[in-house]
């Protein structure tokens, strides 16, 4: 079903539910955590994550952040893997329509809050916009150091040798850095941060971005942030610097050669096509062409 029809079927604001589902005290508590996170870019601030009406792993952290900052005049866009019409995006959008009644959009430039799972929109963000990420694993060192007490100490003392052990392993086994998503970054020259499972293609977009970027991890009960115009540097070695992936193909719908492409299987014969993962960007280019 096309998206505009979905919007027409949108649920109406349910007056029985408090604005944005959470109670006011909870929202205030989360806002305090967000303020602290903005004050210390990249630092993981613990917060009292609430049980939400959907399971962990479906974006409970991002939803709580959005619910705490959203107001009646906000315009909300929700994307999942870059697309506005996949199941996670549709359900979260409907959730906020029902609990807040705010205007929703698919247009990146029209949105004041964009909640995202796994992508940063191709259209550059502007000042005043907020990008909210859903984060499954906030701790970038978790794979090599499972003790959280220890990783907190490593962050506090800025002992980040471990992150390069990870990259060293990739180089030793594959000859190149094989991590393609959730690629660790150094924020504001101080904290190492997991950018949530966005493709590393999107990492450069975080650097000096005019929009506020907020990250919420519901299960792990952590919030962190990258304020507007903050340095975000992807890790690398001097002789093997960070680089993003490129495609041999262009988008078959809009012809873009600079967007992140999804490979879509078309039939049982293995016919495939490459299309932009960002549906709003791709759609606008098709209309313009």
């Amino acid at each position: 079903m096309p998206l505009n029809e979905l919007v027409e079927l949108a649920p109406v604001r349910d007056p029985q539910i408090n604005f944005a589902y959470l109670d006011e005290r909870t929202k205030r508590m989360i806002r305090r955590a967000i303020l602290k996170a903005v004050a210390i870019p990249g630092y993981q601030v613990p917060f009292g994550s609430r049980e939400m009406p959907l399971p962990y792993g479906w974006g409970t952290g991002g939803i709580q952040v959005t619910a705490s900052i959203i107001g009646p005049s906000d315009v909300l866009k929700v994307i999942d893997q870059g697309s506005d019409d996949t199941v996670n995006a549709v359900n979260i959008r409907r959730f906020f329509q029902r609990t807040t009644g705010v205007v929703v959009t698919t247009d990146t430039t029209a949105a004041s809050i964009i909640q995202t799972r796994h992508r940063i929109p191709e259209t550059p963000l502007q000042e005043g916009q907020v990008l909210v990420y859903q984060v499954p694993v906030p701790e970038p060192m978790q794979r090599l150091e499972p003790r959280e007490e220890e990783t907190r100490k490593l962050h506090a003392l800025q002992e980040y040798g471990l992150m390069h052990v990870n990259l060293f392993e990739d180089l030793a086994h594959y000859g190149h850095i094989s991590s393609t998503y959730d690629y660790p970054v150094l924020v504001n020259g101080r904290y190492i941060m997991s950018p949530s499972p966005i493709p590393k293609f999107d990492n450069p977009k975080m650097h000096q971005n005019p929009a506020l970027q907020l990250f919420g991890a519901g299960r792990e009960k952590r919030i962190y942030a990258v304020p507007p115009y903050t340095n975000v540097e992807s890790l690398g070695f001097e002789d093997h610097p960070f680089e993003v992936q490129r495609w041999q193909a262009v988008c078959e719908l809009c012809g873009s050669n600079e967007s992140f492409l999804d490979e879509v299987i078309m039939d049982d014969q293995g016919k495939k096509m490459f299309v932009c993962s960002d549906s709003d960007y791709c759609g606008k280019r098709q209309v313009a062409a």
Partner: protein
Amino acid sequence: MNDLDATPPLMRVQSLSCAYGKRNVVRDISFDLWPGEVLAIVGESGSGKTTLLNAVAARHTPSAGHVSFDLRHQGLQNIYEMSEAQRRMLARTDWGFVHQNAADGLRMNVSAGANVSERLMALGQRHYGQLREQAIDWLERVEISPTRIDDRPNTFSGGMRQRLQIARNLITQPRLVFMDEPTSGLDVSVQAKLLDMMRTLTRQMNLAAIVVTHDLAVARLLAQRMLVMQNGEAVETGLTDQVLDDPQHPYTQLLVSSVLQP
């Protein structure tokens, strides 16, 4: 005044006591360790050897006493008065710690090369080619074939793991290494090879070491000086040969006479 008085000791331990709750397991131990010297701490299980080692290696806060280390530009400093950041920095640059069980001192799920280079990366080296060269150099020095550089330590034998652990610790050219029963758990021929290698390395690098062992042969081969512990107290200290050949304290006499002669 002889030379020994002119140079400061590398480490000075003064009236050190450690307690677990009300139970004193290390009582009033003092010693000086000089650069390049190997000190063996011997005694039976439960005598407080490992607790003493952990206390002087800043891994277990003592209940009383001082541990000072000769920092490169500041002279003797009490390690428990430093900031935690400074202490951890010291522990991964100028010190090494070799665990009895190599799995405790290694990252078993990353390659040997990454294990050996980790300390250098922690110090900020960011050139993959150079890191790898240094890792290969150290693998050779501990007699591990460089062809094993990309293998994980869980594919290594016990002796190789122990040598890998030593390489991982020595790559930053520390001045002091703590070893907790480095050879127990290895078979005799592997033990001999490891001891031989450690003796060569300590000589070459002018490396001081504190070795905890219950094996008097290890003490005899490696250490210039030894400290015999019983029930948390140092009952006898002295030159290794002197203590082993002419033990004065009844407990040391018992220890020496308990060694099996094949």
